Each structure stands twice: as structure tokens, then as C-alpha cells.
């Protein structure tokens, strides 16, 4: 079932500009890419992390290690959540200890996914810092979590859905607001 | 003195007297006084049997009443109540009690208990061997004198061929039929169901058909050698059928019985390891079931018996491997026979009644199973038109171990009369 789209809030070039800006902000805030690693939350966060890594390489000329998390096993709704899709593998091809981790996700909403991701990362080791980069912050936080890097703030109703689409998975880059399916 | 009863307007099936048509039955002084159309007699009680069939009370020569020793499974009182609820008026009870019926005192005990508490005629079967141990022959002469009608170690075979030879010789002198539970225990090898595709898929130890068939073969050879009367209990395999067929052709004193589950169920019927489908011999292959049906059709099978074997629920609601062998059968005997033998046209109604009345009586030498004038007034009335679901919770037997639970069947008993007294009346 395809959700009914109400409005397109970012088009491909908006997404690209936002990612370029975030890449610069990351380098600026961390004063280069020393000890920097990118970890995307599957599945679209993984794609965005790879894009950021490519942009950082374009700016600095050096590749930054990139990994991906599947947070299914760390969700805080294990009691009520019925697995509706097969969990993906977490792929962290580096040790996170003493690294500055940039956690990348597509949408920041309640903050629960970020919480799960942080818990999962610290099960792998002890990073010096974890920073959060998101393409969209739509508000409605339920946890004391904020994003360090935001592509666009999109105030939304909790009855709506904010969908990030990336061309690797969804044919084109865009961000849309849709009617909630629930 | 019992009341006189007139059973009016029914369809009488009395194979012993070649009656198969509308007739009335008049009962007086506990005996059959007259059978005929439109009887003009005055009776204390009239039973309207319109649309029903009226037959001699059924005779089941293979029943486990469990008393003495296993009263938690069944008693003479409950077992005979189940019998009359199934239209059965005479049962021969097997001697695997505790103590077993290897002694005249036990025969007397059962007979007196049956007279006091029983609901139908009870004829004890004596042990072949002392303590049913298969080692020394029992006091057959005394057992017969006390009232045993046949010999069997049922539940266990006589594995020792030499003993069987001597038993047959000695039993012949007493004119007692030897009923053997034909099973080679070595071949059975602790099996729990028929050996074949079904046991393989279920991962259960199999009992090969040969386990029964080789024993039938051995016993037929010994029956030929000794001239004894040999009866195959609960025949279940195609191989046994062939052997009995040949024995009969030779004119040997060999007879056989089969039970309703051997023509209505196969090893493929066992689902979810339900131990209510576990009995010995086990439910066989489709080929064996077909052979049993053919044997019934061709007259190779001499009679139908239930092998009614009640067990407590704890002995059945457990691991299939550990569950007791045996199922109850008295209360479903005629419905399964009618719905799965007569209705599909394997045998005629009259032949089915014969297999359930006069034929088994003859095998163990009972003067039962007929509506001849002067015979004991044992009569059953069946409804062969309305269908009803088997519900084990309605059973009179203590056992709930029936594989037929939930089946829709026709042929339910309506009234059962034993020696001129109504012992069962359907609600």
C-alpha cells in the first residue's frame, strides 16, 4: 500500500544541498576527520551515511569509515512489536572505541530509534562521542535527544508521516509528507 | 417373572432363521414365544419398532471387562452396561485380569458378580496358560466345568510352539476352542504401530504385518496337526486372510474374527500421536484394510468382535510410546458396522447381523444369537435411519479411548432386551 502523499517538502537538489552542508558542519565541528566514523541506521540512514562519507571524501580527499546498524533487537517495544520484516545485519567494520561516531538517520521523530542505536553502539565499545545527524527533524520528541546536524526542520502533525526517499532504494531522492497509514 | 413384551411393526433380521422382513416379536417368560407378522397377542408391554430393525441381541466374543484387578478401567457392571447400550446381550470376557482367569474360582467370581451386578450375559474365557505366562497349560478341564467357554491368553500370544501344540491337543479333548492373540513378539520388537510409511514418517517403532501373519501360519499348521479348534483373534493383515482362506479350503477347524477398526481405519488415520488410535494388533496399511473388507465380503471372516479394551485417561493421554494398547468398542460396534460395512455394500444387513449374533455364538458354543422360539429373549432394536455423532462422554463404559469420537454414524441401538427384560432404552 502506498501512503497518500500530501506534499513534497524536499526535492533531490534540496536533499543534496542539505547533505553537503551537514558534511561541512561535521568537519567544522570536529576539526577535520581525525577518529571520525559514520554509522547509518538501516535502512535509509545507511544510504545517507554513505552519501555523507562520499561528500567528506570529496572535501577532504580522505575516506571516512562507514558502518550500518540494524536496531531491531534494541527496540524498546519488544513486548508489543511483532517483527514484520526480517532483521538486517549490523555491519561495523571497525572498532568504535575512542572514535567520534556520527550516527546518521533519515528522520528524527520520537527519539526512540536514536536511543536504540546509541545502546547498540555502546555494546560494541566506548566511543569518545556520539553525534546525531538527520536529514529531517519533525519534532514530537519523547526522549531527551536532539540532533547535532539537521538537514531541514519540518514541523508535522503526529497524524502525518514524513517519508524520506533515496534513489538507491526508492528510485528518486525526495522528502514527502503523507497521510498516516495507521 | 418378567413381563411379556410385544415388539411391533419392526423389520426383523434373524439370520439363524432366515428371517429378513417385517414381523412382530413376542416375548414371554424371558423366552422368545413367537415371531411373525401381525401377531395378535396380549402383552404387558408393547414396543413400537416401526421403522426400526429388530435383531437377536448381539454377541461379542472378545471383550475386556477388566474385573477383577483393573476396576479403575472397567468393571463387570460398567462393561455390561456399555454392552447393552451397544445392543450387545452376550459377551465373552478375556482372562487378562488380575488374577487372571486361570482358576475355576475366578470363573465363579466373574459369573456370580455378573449375575448380581451385570446387565447382560457374561461368558468367561479361561487362560491357555497358568498366570498367562505362556509356560504351563492351565487346568482347562476345571475351567470348562466352572463355565469357561473358550481358552485364550489374549493380550499375549503363546510364543512357545511346543506348548501351543500340547494346548491344542488337550483343548481338543475338552472340545474347547483355542483363541490366540497371534503375534510374534520378537518381530513386534516393542513396536507401537503398524510398520510402514506412516510409522516411518512419525518416527514410531513399527510392528510388521508379518508379526501377526507368521503366528497365524504357525497356529494353522498346529491346528492341522492336532485337529483342534483354532480361532484367530482380531485378524488384521492381508497375509492372515490368505492363510485362513487356505485353511478353510482344506477343511480345518480354523475360524477368525475381525474388529470394526480394522475395516474402518488404517495407520494413516493416526493423527497428532493420539493414543486412542493405538491398539494391538495396530491399525494396518490401506492394503490390509482392503483385504479385511474383501475377506468380510467373501465370507472368510467368521465373526465380528470388538476387542473392547477400556483404559483410564492417564494411560492414554500420554506419550504414544508409553500409552496402553486398546480401544473401547462396545457402544460403537453396530453403528460402525452399519455405517462402514453395510451402507457401503461390503456385506448385507442380514450378513452383518449374522456376523454379530449366531456366527460368534457358534464359535464358542453358545446357544445364543437367534430369535428361535424358546431361545432366551435377547433382542436388540436399532435405528438405521438417523445419524448421530459419537460422543465418548456419553459412553457407559469407563473408557473414553475411542478413535471414533466425533464420527457421524447411523445404526444406533434403541432398545436392548436381555432374557426378556429391557436393559437399555435410548433417551
Amino acid at each position: 500500500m502506498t501512503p497518500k502523499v500530501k506534499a513534497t517538502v524536499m526535492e533531490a537538489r534540496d536533499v543534496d544541498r542539505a547533505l553537503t552542508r551537514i558534511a561541512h558542519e561535521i568537519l567544522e565541528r570536529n576539526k577535520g576527520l581525525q577518529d571520525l566514523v559514520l554509522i547509518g541506521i538501516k535502512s535509509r540512514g545507511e544510504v545517507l551515511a554513505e552519501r555523507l562519507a562520499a561528500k567528506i571524501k570529496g572535501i577532504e580527499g580522505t575516506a571516512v569509515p562507514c558502518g550500518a546498524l540494524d536496531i531491531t533487537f534494541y527496540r524498546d517495544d519488544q513486548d508489543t512489536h511483532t517483527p514484520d520484516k526480517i532483521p538486517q545485519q549490523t555491519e561495523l567494520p571497525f572498532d568504535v572505541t575512542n572514535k567520534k561516531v556520527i550516527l546518521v538517520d533519515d528522520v528524527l521523530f520520537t527519539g526512540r530509534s536514536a536511543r536504540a542505536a546509541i545502546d547498540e553502539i555502546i555494546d560494541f565499545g566506548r566511543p569518545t562521542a556520539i553525534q546525531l545527524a538527520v536529514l529531517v527533524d519533525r519534532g514530537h520528541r519523547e526522549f531527551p535527544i536532539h540532533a547535532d546536524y539537521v538537514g531541514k526542520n519540518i514541523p508535522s502533525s503526529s497524524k502525518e508521516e514524513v517519508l524520506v526517499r533515496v534513489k538507491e532504494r526508492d528510485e528518486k531522492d525526495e522528502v514527502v509528507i503523507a497521510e498516516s497509514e495507521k | 417373572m418378567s413381563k411379556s413384551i410385544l415388539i411391533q411393526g419392526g423389520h426383523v433380521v434373524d439370520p439363524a432363521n432366515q428371517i429378513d422382513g417385517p414381523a412382530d416379536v413376542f416375548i414371554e417368560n424371558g423366552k422368545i414365544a413367537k415371531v411373525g407378522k401381525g401377531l395378535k397377542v396380549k402383552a404387558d408391554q408393547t414396543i413400537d419398532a416401526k421403522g426400526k430393525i429388530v435383531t437377536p441381541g448381539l454377541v461379542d466374543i472378545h471383550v475386556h471387562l477388566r474385573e477383577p484387578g483393573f476396576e479403575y478401567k472397567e468393571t463387570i457392571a460398567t462393561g455390561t452396561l456399555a454392552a447393552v447400550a451397544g445392543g450387545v446381550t452376550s459377551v465373552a470376557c478375556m482372562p487378562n485380569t488380575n488374577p487372571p482367569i486361570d482358576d475355576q474360582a475366578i470363573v465363579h467370581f466373574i459369573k456370580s458378580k455378573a449375575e448380581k451386578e451385570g446387565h447382560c450375559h457374561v461368558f468367561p474365557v479361561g487362560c491357555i496358560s497358568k498366570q498367562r505366562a505362556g509356560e504351563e497349560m492351565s487346568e482347562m478341564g476345571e475351567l470348562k466345568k466352572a463355565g469357561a467357554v473358550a481358552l485364550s491368553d489374549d493380550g499375549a500370544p503363546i510364543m512357545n510352539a511346543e506348548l501351543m501344540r500340547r494346548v491344542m491337543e488337550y483343548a481338543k479333548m475338552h472340545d474347547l476352542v483355542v483363541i490366540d492373540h497371534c503375534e510374534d513378539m520378537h518381530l513386534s520388537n516393542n513396536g507401537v504401530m503398524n510398520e510402514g510409511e506412516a510409522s516411518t514418517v512419525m518416527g514410531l517403532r513399527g510392528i510388521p504385518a508379518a508379526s501377526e501373519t507368521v503366528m497365524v501360519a504357525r497356529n494353522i499348521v498346529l491346528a492341522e496337526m492336532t485337529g483342534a479348534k483354532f480361532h484367530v483373534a482380531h485378524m488384521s493383515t492381508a497375509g492372515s486372510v490368505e492363510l485362513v482362506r487356505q485353511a478353510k479350503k482344506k477343511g480345518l477347524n480354523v475360524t477368525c474374527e475381525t474388529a470394526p477398526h480394522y475395516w474402518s481405519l488404517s495407520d494413516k488415520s493416526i493423527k497428532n500421536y493420539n493414543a486412542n488410535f493405538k491398539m494391538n494388533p495396530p491399525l494396518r496399511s490401506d492394503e490390509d484394510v482392503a483385504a479385511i473388507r474383501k475377506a468380510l465380503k467373501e465370507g472368510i471372516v467368521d465373526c465380528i468382535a470388538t476387542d473392547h479394551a477400556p483404559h483410564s485417561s492417564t494411560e492414554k493421554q500420554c506419550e504414544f510410546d508409553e500409552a496402553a494398547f486398546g480401544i473401547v468398542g462396545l457402544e460403537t460396534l453396530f453403528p460402525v458396522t452399519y455405517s462402514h460395512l453395510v451402507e457401503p455394500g461390503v456385506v448385507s444387513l442380514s450378513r452383518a447381523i449374522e456376523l454379530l449374533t449366531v456366527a460368534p455364538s457358534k464359535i464358542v458354543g453358545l446357544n445364543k444369537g437367534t430369535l428361535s422360539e424358546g431361545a432366551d429373549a435377547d433382542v436388540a432394536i436399532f435405528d438405521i435411519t438417523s445419524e448421530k455423532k459419537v460422543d465418548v462422554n456419553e459412553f457407559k463404559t469407563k473408557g473414553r479411548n475411542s478413535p471414533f469420537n466425533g464420527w457421524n454414524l447411523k445404526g444406533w441401538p434403541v432398545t436392548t432386551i436381555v432374557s426378556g427384560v429391557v436393559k437399555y432404552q435410548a433417551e
Partner: protein
Amino acid sequence: MSWKSKDLLTIQDLSTAEIQTILDTAASFKEVSTRSVKKVPALRGRTVVLFFHEPSTRTRISFELAAKRMSADILTVQAASSSLVKGETLIDTLKTLDSMTIDAIVVRHKCSGVPLMLANATNASVINAGDGAHEHPTQALLDLYTINEHKGKIAGLTVTIIGDVTHSRVARSNIHGLQKMGAKVRVCAPPTLLPAGIEKMGVTVFHDLDKALEGTDVVYVLRLQLERQKKNLFPTIREYSMLYSVTSERLKRAKKDAIVMHPGPMNRGVEISSGVADGPASVIDDQVTNGVAVRMAVLYLLKGEKEGEK
């Protein structure tokens, strides 16, 4: 995703899609076992009972590890004797456990069919960890996973199962599973160790090991219960080895890239030579590793369905 059942009782009753779901899910859990902290909170607060009525070390440890790596609480109930000897029926024991509100129960029993019986008597998820000679579904699933891992596919492969099929629940579950996934299955043993009607399960029967191995992609060696010799199922262990032991020499008849599997524990020098067990074709250690992942996947999927019912 296709997962609907409360229990995992047999491979026979699983659909191809369900098997695929378990295998796919297992891949994620395999990754968890490679972490330095090999634990995820997916079953936190859940109680898993290991109900073992038959001695078992490997399967019990594998399930225990699987449950622990998912943060479940584990209770082991080992009963050496049958329920009837103990004087309490199995169902009563189960009801006792059930009353303590458990979430899943992993059952191993020497009698075929026991997990099916228990599944009907409890709300907890029942996982069959081996019942009699009936089924051992998680073993077959880990075998399928291992085959797929090494061969990249299961469909179209020829798998030869060698040894005591009669008494083997592993063989039965694998026959069902391999055929559902599109493999061709051969069995090879003396007639005394093959159950009646085995060919009706769709397998090709061989008595000659050399012939059976020809063109085989997967050589699956069953454990020989040495005490079977006393039951006249084969004359001596020596003769059995001569005819049926998988040796390096014999293995040459299989395909060049054939893999060798064994459910363990092995009788080295009886059904399999040490050269083969430790050789390049052996994937026996991988089977053990994958066992934990597959069992984690099963526990995870069953948890989901149980919640879905509420």
C-alpha cells in the same frame, strides 16, 4: 514475512517460505555472535524453559546460548526418567511450568510426538528440540543454513544421507527440509538401518556407498549408535565401517567441491574418518556455529507471533 505459528514442531509442517524466513532471520543473528558483546536485548524479560527428557549436551547448550544471547531468562528442567515412572504425567509437569507464566519451552523427549502433545496443552511457544525418531527441526534448519552458506543455494543439489536413518530424527527433518527447498535426497545404509517405506518419502535408496556418493554435493553422515549392534542391525562395527565409513578415499567419488556434514557427536573411525572430519570438505564446525544463530532466529520469530496474538 511469513511466520504465523505459535510453535516450531516439525519441518514437515513448514512451508518453503517459512523455512526461508527462518534462514534469512538467522543471518542477522549470526552477526550478533561475532560481536565482542554477544548479546542483544531482543528477549529481555522473557522466560525460556529448556525441558529436556533425554540426555543432550550439544542441543541444550546451543539453545541455552541462543536464549542468553537474546537476554532471555533461562530455566533448565532435566528429567532422566519417563513421566510415568516419576508418577507425574508430562502434561501435569507442563501445567506446573505454564502456571509460572513461561514464554517458550524447548522440548527434547525420547518419545516421538511429545512436543506436539505439549503444544496443544500450553499457551507458551513450544520448540521441538528432538522427539524420538520423529523430528529435530532446528538441526535441519541449521543444516540448511550451512548448506546454503557454502553452496549459495539448496535447490538442485544432491544430498546423500548416510547411516542409521531408522532411528534418526535428524534424517527425517532433513529429508523434509531438503526436499521442500528443492534438493534431491539419497539415503545410504544397510536395509536393516532403513525404515519401512522410506522411499515413499521421496528419497532414492542406496546400499552401496560408492554408488551413493557419485555426483553428490553434500555428504551428510549420521551418527551410528554403537549399541545398535546388539539389536542385530549390523554384525559388527568393524563391518559397518568397512562398508559405510566416509573416508578420504571414498569421498573422491562425490563432486570435487562436495561438503561433508555431521550432526555430532562423531564416532571417529566408525562412520567418518578423522581425515574427512578435519579435512577441507568438512563444514561440521560451521554447523555448530550456525546452530546458535538459527535457534536465536527461531526464538525471535516465535516471540513475535506470540505477541501478535495478544
